């Protein structure tokens, strides 16, 4: 890091008052002696420090006056602008810039973040700041950035076998590898990953997915035991462009995708000041904002411990249920899924269209051409917890899920371009604005949840809860009664003319219960 003694004060200002207004309730009594206790003695909680980092970045380091991750109690004030349906909303709660907060949450959970956007929009700068935040010197972080380019080989990326060993070794295991230093850094940055050749991308995939790298039968772990590593990738295209197409497995490993923001001309003076001073923000990160390995580990544990209340789980579960099912995707009921269509080389959009009479407005699943992977769901849970932890709330709220969901599902839940949603009037905007579409999809799902009265009417959930309590002591008669109840639920669903994703999941779950109960009844009968 640079000489902090000569550091201009404008870089070194860290929010000294609590960054979360909801957390500092009341007035804590102080004495004059308290004022002379060093800040270290008054330990700043890790979530507070992460908020300080966020505000330092948006106020000092990256010129980003965008507040697109909005939080409001009640309805925010909305103002319509122009004659083309544009509105700006003024949230009532602290709201955040996604292009800073999403990478920061990635740093906190030890995830993988893809930063996309045109050249010169600060993608690499944000990523480098995350590296410095982990305690690595800014020069070292910059040096460790792996520049994607068409000639990048696996050896360029991971290191080379020692030439002497290559000559003298009798076995592959005798060859030692001179591993590249960047592999051991807690924050790893791959610039322009869509310019990397396919073979090198595969080596990268092993590192990202498995946490190790292999060369000449030698293995090196990239993440220290119990440690937290985070990855930042940049690309100027998220639609499959670039020198080499990104292999799907690697693209799928991106936990979150966030767009870099453009420059706001009202902040031009600040830009001139920086040019004149020749300053780089990452050289000025206040030392007290960095996280050491133990703190990063503790931070991730704290995030994982944030509870998700039942009310939030129910709405998330309902949202997830929309997307896997597609009518006519297969003959057997279990195979009526988008994945069956896709893996057979079919087009999901055409299958959806073939489902004549379907109400495409109601069927949210018709808006996508795939379902959600388990990995995407796990990521969504983790980032929702991180969002809640960052905001200083005790449990995940629906707003936390809504805030991170578009960034987690971008590139994973793919829009069905043939759906009218992307082809009619003002809705056409959603075909290019994936984040708004995903946010709206979740909002639509929540509205549907309310209109269906799912809070009060959850008979399938009740049956599953009953089964989860165990079968110990359940009589044959009781088990048979439950079998009848399961069949009754299936018949109830059968009376609905049109099937939706939520019904598909219910039917599969009911069949599962039916199997378990009938097997239990058979076993009881065999026992006599």
């Amino acid at each position, binding site marked *: 890091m640079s000489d902090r003694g000569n550091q201009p004060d404008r870089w070194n200002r860290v929010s*000294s*008052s609590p960054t979360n207004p*909801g957390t500092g309730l009341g007035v*804590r*009594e102080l004495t*004059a002696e308290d004022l*002379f206790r060093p800040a270290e003695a008054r330990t700043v909680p890790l979530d507070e420090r992460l908020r300080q980092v966020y505000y330092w970045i948006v106020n000092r380091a990256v010129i980003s006056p965008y507040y697109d991750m909005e939080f409001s109690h009640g309805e925010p004030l909305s103002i319509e602008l122009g004659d083309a349906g544009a509105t700006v909303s003024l949230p009532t709660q602290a709201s955040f810039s996604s292009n800073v907060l999403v990478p920061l949450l990635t740093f906190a959970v030890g995830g993988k973040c893809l930063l996309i956007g045109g050249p010169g929009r600060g993608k690499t700068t944000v990523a480098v700041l995350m590296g410095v935040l982990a305690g690595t010197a800014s020069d070292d972080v910059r040096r460790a950035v792996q520049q994607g380019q068409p000639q990048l080989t696996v050896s360029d990326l991971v290191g080379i076998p020692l030439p002497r060993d290559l000559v003298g070794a009798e076995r592959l295991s005798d060859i030692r590898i001179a591993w590249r230093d960047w592999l051991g850094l807690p924050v790893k940055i791959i610039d322009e990953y869509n310019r990397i050749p396919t073979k090198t991308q595969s080596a990268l995939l092993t590192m990202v997915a498995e946490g190790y790298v292999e060369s000449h039968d030698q293995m090196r772990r990239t993440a220290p035991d119990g440690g937290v590593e985070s990855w930042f990738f940049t690309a100027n295209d998220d639609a499959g462009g670039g020198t080499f197409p990104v292999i799907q497995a690697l693209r799928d490993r991106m936990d979150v995708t966030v767009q870099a923001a453009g420059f706001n001309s009202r902040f031009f003076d600040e830009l001139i000041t920086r040019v004149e001073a020749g300053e780089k923000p990452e050289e000025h990160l206040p030392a007290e904002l960095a996280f050491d390995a133990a703190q990063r580990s503790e931070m991730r544990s704290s995030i994982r411990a944030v509870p998700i209340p039942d009310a939030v789980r129910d709405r998330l579960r309902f949202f997830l249920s929309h997307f896997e099912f597609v009518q006519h995707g297969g003959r057997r009921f279990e195979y009526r899924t988008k994945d069956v269509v896709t893996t057979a080389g079919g087009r999901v959009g055409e299958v959806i269209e073939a489902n004549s009479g379907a109400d495409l407005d109601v069927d949210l699943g018709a808006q996508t051409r795939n379902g959600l992977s388990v990995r995407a769901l796990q990521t969504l849970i983790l980032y929702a917890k991180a969002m809640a932890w960052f905001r200083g709330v005790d449990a995940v709220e629906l707003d936390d899920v809504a805030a991170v969901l578009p960034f987690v599902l971008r590139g994973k839940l793919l829009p069905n371009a043939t759906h009218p949603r992307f082809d009619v009037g003002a809705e056409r905007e959603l075909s290019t604005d994936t984040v708004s579409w995903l946010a709206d999809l979740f909002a639509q799902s929540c509205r549907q949840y309310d209109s269906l009265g799912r809070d009060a009417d959850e008979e399938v959930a009740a049956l599953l809860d009953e089964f989860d309590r165990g079968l110990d002591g359940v009589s044959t008669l009781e088990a048979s009664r439950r079998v009848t109840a399961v069949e009754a639920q299936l018949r109830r669903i059968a009376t609905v003319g049109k099937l939706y994703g939520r019904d598909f999941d219910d039917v599969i779950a009911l069949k599962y219960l039916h199997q378990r109960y009938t097997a239990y009844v058979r076993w009881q009968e065999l026992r006599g």
Partner: protein
Amino acid sequence: MNRLPVQLANAPAPFAPAALPDFSSVGLDTALATRSVSQAHGDAEQFTRALAAGVAADAASRDDRDRALDLVAIAGWRAGALGLRVDALTRLAALPTAETRVAAAAVLGIGVDQLDVFIRRQGTDRFWWPGRADQRGYVLAVGGFRGIGGAWIRPPERVERLADPGAFAFLVGGVWWRLDADVWGSRLAVLAEEPATALASGERVTGQDGVTVQDGVTVVDGVTVVIGPDTHLAWVHVREAA
């Protein structure tokens, strides 16, 4: 007309610009104290100026740790760090010499002849200072329109008194806010939910501090929080007893 939050005891500015006093000879780091005052929601610049005014009036405080701490506590409170209120008032009531009384008055920005009445009045009225009558009883304004640097995007709809002294709750655009305030400072913070101790609007209560609540306007020993549908500011006003 005021459109931004203001603490009227600080208008006009009560202290001249000054350098931060050095108490290193008694082992006190005043730069650290300044940061702490700031973290306690006080104004660092006001703290510096108030402390400097006190040291100018009592140079011996540089070499006497107890006297220095007296001035620091009073200056921190004067700068708006509400948490120092009890410590500062305790120290004000126990000032040992005439010099220290002069210095304390200088830190508060009042005449030394007003010091005793200030300490006495503060015992029952946290919003009192000698200049209040000149402000027709108004003490401070909080909130303000966010678009011009305030806190709120709508005028406050309700105000309720909370159990803690000097604490009030505001309902603004469906969100509850908490105000903690006294004569020298105020702190406004968002509440996660409706405060449990808030009294229902229109309920009449007489209890601790002689509280009376009337039609959504809270009165505490003559203390009224004035809100209106056409202003984003909430004013704390104290009606003097006849």
